């Protein structure tokens, strides 16, 4: 039941440990390169991950000199506005922690209130325990965690689930990592009402909103994944779209970008279909400026469904 899988070789008292070499050898360098490549922005998240990795390396080095090293608490809370990548990072986190050797299996179990809280007396505890058992050796991701606590209903079973969670988070720190996620202000209220959670969650990571350039970069990657490209005019139009959309209400960062691109694909398909002539491969993969400019955002409306105005 060891959290760190490979036993470190004991070191002599006067030996020197080269962290650069250790870093390269552990495969952590690859993980962080991959992270930088795959995730746009999110500087605070990445720097926190580097800190955790550094702690692991230092702990290993300490163990080699026979110095005590207790396994750190890794429970986290992710707060941030909609669409800032909380769920995406949680998915990666399980993999990262597995490679770092903090969790044994590295699978992610994603749950919401429904999966933890029962509907009648005595239903909650078995349900919560079942989920915890499933998540052991991996990462338990509780999305919209603030729903667990319903202050307006004092008979709510959420409290029972919270108590079981806290107990396991404390006693079986080696066996699973719990990540709570939710919107900033509501999580703040959740932690205020449950002081036990705040002290047991060691890492509070705030996901910042993306800048215009970062959103454009995200859009580029999403398009890559879908197998589309933008013409230069379309790129310029998309940059303008982002600037306009950002200041509108109900802006959900990465998610809004994905929706905008989905709608642009829809318009492109419509345009090709309506053109009534054979289309080439290039035309099939290229989004034109017209596909972007047709958005309601440019005429002062909100690009969402159902329309808000």
């Amino acid at each position, binding site marked *: *039941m060891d959290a760190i899988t490979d036993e470190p070789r004991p070191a002599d008292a006067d030996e020197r440990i080269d962290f650069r070499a250790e870093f390269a050898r552990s495969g952590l360098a690859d993980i962080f390169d991959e992270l930088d490549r795959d995730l746009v922005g999110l500087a605070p998240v990445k720097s926190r991950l580097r800190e955790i990795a550094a702690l692991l390396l230092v702990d290993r080095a300490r163990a080699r000199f026979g110095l005590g090293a207790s396994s750190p608490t890794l429970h986290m809370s992710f707060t941030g506005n909609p669409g800032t990548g909380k769920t995406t990072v949680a998915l990666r986190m399980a993999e990262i922690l597995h490679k770092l050797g903090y969790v044994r299996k590295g699978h992610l179990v994603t749950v919401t209130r429904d999966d933890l809280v029962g509907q009648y007396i005595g239903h909650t505890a078995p349900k919560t325990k079942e989920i915890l*058992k499933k998540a052991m050796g*991996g990462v338990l991701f509780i999305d919209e965690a603030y729903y667990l606590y319903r202050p307006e209903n004092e008979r709510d079973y959420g409290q029972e689930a919270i108590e079981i969670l806290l107990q396991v988070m404390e006693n079986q720190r080696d066996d*699973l990592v719990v990540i709570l996620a939710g919107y900033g202000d509501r999580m703040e209220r959740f932690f205020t009402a449950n002081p036990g959670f705040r002290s047991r969650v060691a890492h509070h990571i705030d996901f910042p909103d993306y800048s215009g350039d970062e959103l454009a970069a995200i859009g580029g990657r999403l398009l890559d994944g879908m197998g589309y490209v933008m013409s230069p005019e379309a790129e310029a139009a998309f940059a303008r779209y982002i600037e306009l959309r950002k200041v509108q209400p109900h802006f959900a960062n990465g998610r809004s970008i994905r929706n905008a691109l989905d709608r642009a694909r829809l318009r492109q398909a419509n345009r090709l279909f309506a053109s009534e002539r054979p289309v080439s491969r290039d035309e099939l993969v290229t989004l034109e400026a017209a596909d972007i400019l047709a958005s309601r955002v440019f005429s002062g409306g909100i690009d969402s469904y159902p329309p808000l105005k």
Partner: protein
Amino acid sequence: MRLTQGAFSFLPDLTDEQIARQVQYCIDKGWAVNIEFTDDPHPRNTYWEMWGMPMFDVKDAAGVMFELNECRKAYGGRNYIRVSAFDSTHTWESLRLSFLTDRPADEPGFALERQEVDGRTIRYTTRSYAAMRPEGARY
């Protein structure tokens, strides 16, 4: 008399770490791990009481150890507890591994009864001393 049923039963009792390693082996093979207990250790008593459901979707031994410890809290010291692993793949569909994890502090053993019938023929019966007392009061 020390009960020897299932795998590893001629070895010293497994430590929790050893149990966890065995359980992890079963999980990695894709078998569903069960926890069972009984206070009637007769060798022909195949079906023990189950502690909860078979654990089909647990990925790590820690989940099974959690349940094993819960079972120990309820029955430890008064019952035999065993871990078994069920292989659901077609044509197997049966237990692949079963071993004892806990036994009562005091194991009185079995009596062998000989019944003389029809001339010199003898019929044998094993009877657990513990099972002579009512259920729940045996160990």
